[in-house]
């Protein structure tokens, strides 16, 4: 990557955004941190930059790694301070349209709309049939859930009954 120009204020922020947009999510490297919707803001400070990030899950083990990646990628811009901002809480609805396409191409079904799990009454039993997910490989709707929790906190495990391939579903939260 060529060194970004650090001249005018506006250009400097643009250049920093450009760098930010290249940083992949460490656990789902098919999409960038920006596409995942966890970069809230980027501001200039006296000696460098301030990046506002938001965690996806309280216990996401990648949180520290993401901060290190951002700091390293932006080091050419001076001192990088990172602010972790919880409110408003991240929702999978913030994953961009482009990010969703990339997830599907990577073999992960992107999340449906977050159901507002906070306020709605929860149906504990006799739930309506789960939304049928289309297999990201063959498109078949003949799929079933294998496990509510997958390889990372943000995903559940499914399999396609038509092509017999397992696949992951990015949970809507």
């Amino acid at each position: 990557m060529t060194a970004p120009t650090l001249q005018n204020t506006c250009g400097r922020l643009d250049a920093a955004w450009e760098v930010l947009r290249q940083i992949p999510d460490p656990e789902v490297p098919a999409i960038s941190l920006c596409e995942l919707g966890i970069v809230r803001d980027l501001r200039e400070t006296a000696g460098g930059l301030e990046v506002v990030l938001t965690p996806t899950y309280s216990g996401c083990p990648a949180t520290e790694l993401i901060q290190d990646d951002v700091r390293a990628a932006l080091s050419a811009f001076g001192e990088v301070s990172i602010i972790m901002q919880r409110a408003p809480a991240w929702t999978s609805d913030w994953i961009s349209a482009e990010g969703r396409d990339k997830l599907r191409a990577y073999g992960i079904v992107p999340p449906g709309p977050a159901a507002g799990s906070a306020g709605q009454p929860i149906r504990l039993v006799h739930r309506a049939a789960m939304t049928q997910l289309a297999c990201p490989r063959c498109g078949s709707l003949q799929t079933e859930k294998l496990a509510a929790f997958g390889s990372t906190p943000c995903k559940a495990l499914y399999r396609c009954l038509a092509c017999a391939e397992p696949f992951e579903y990015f949970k809507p939260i």
Partner: protein
Amino acid sequence: MSEASIKVGHQPAVQYLLRIGDSCLILGQRLGEWCGHAPVLEEDLALSNMALDLIGQARALLTHAGELDGQGHDEDQLAFLRDERQYLNPVLMELPNGFEASHDFAFTQWRNFAVSTWLLLLYRRLQHSSDAGLAAIAAKAVKEAAYQQQHAADWVVRLGDGTPESAARMQTALQQLWPYFNELFDADAVDAAAVAQGLGPAWSELLPEWQAHLAEVLSDAGLTLPKASAFMSSGKRGIHSEHMGHLLAELQYLQRAFPGGRW
């Protein structure tokens, strides 16, 4: 980090936060013990994932409690350097993963259902806390609690409405854990102060809704509610069961053996 044990302050807000944060920390530690022992691989992943959620919530809550306490203690110091009497989780959280076997799946799922329902109701209320930091933690955690509750409810119904053996084990777990639920709804001066400050609800306020969730799932599982118990545990005041010391020995081992160790 110094190796000496630390103490927390007596401010009600700090105690209120630690009761919740310690509940997450200690149950998270217990669920972590399932890693490699669950009946199927999928459930191994689920229990580990739920442990991760709870420990993530504990990190945020302990950090916030440390800030309110004003003694400069961070999440690690609070998690690893307190002595037993300084932990304020209800005893329910520290009970082992089974009374009759070291890993009793019915026992764990039933506790998870009861606790995730309680946490869900608590976090829902805490989203409106006068403390913006606590409200933000709750707004994130409430979604995680809802997912955990769903998962545990599925198991309670599946086991309760399963074979005679699975139903009997679930009913046994129900009986064994029942007396320890009382502490989740026993409000005291710490709750009264939290209500007065707008920090959060008195835990006793959560009882009717919690009972309604339990009744719905138990009826579908074909299980019967045990009779009310007069037993009252006292973990919220730092008086724990015999299981807590053993849990802390494992939880704290590294920081006690290698003070300030990091990786």
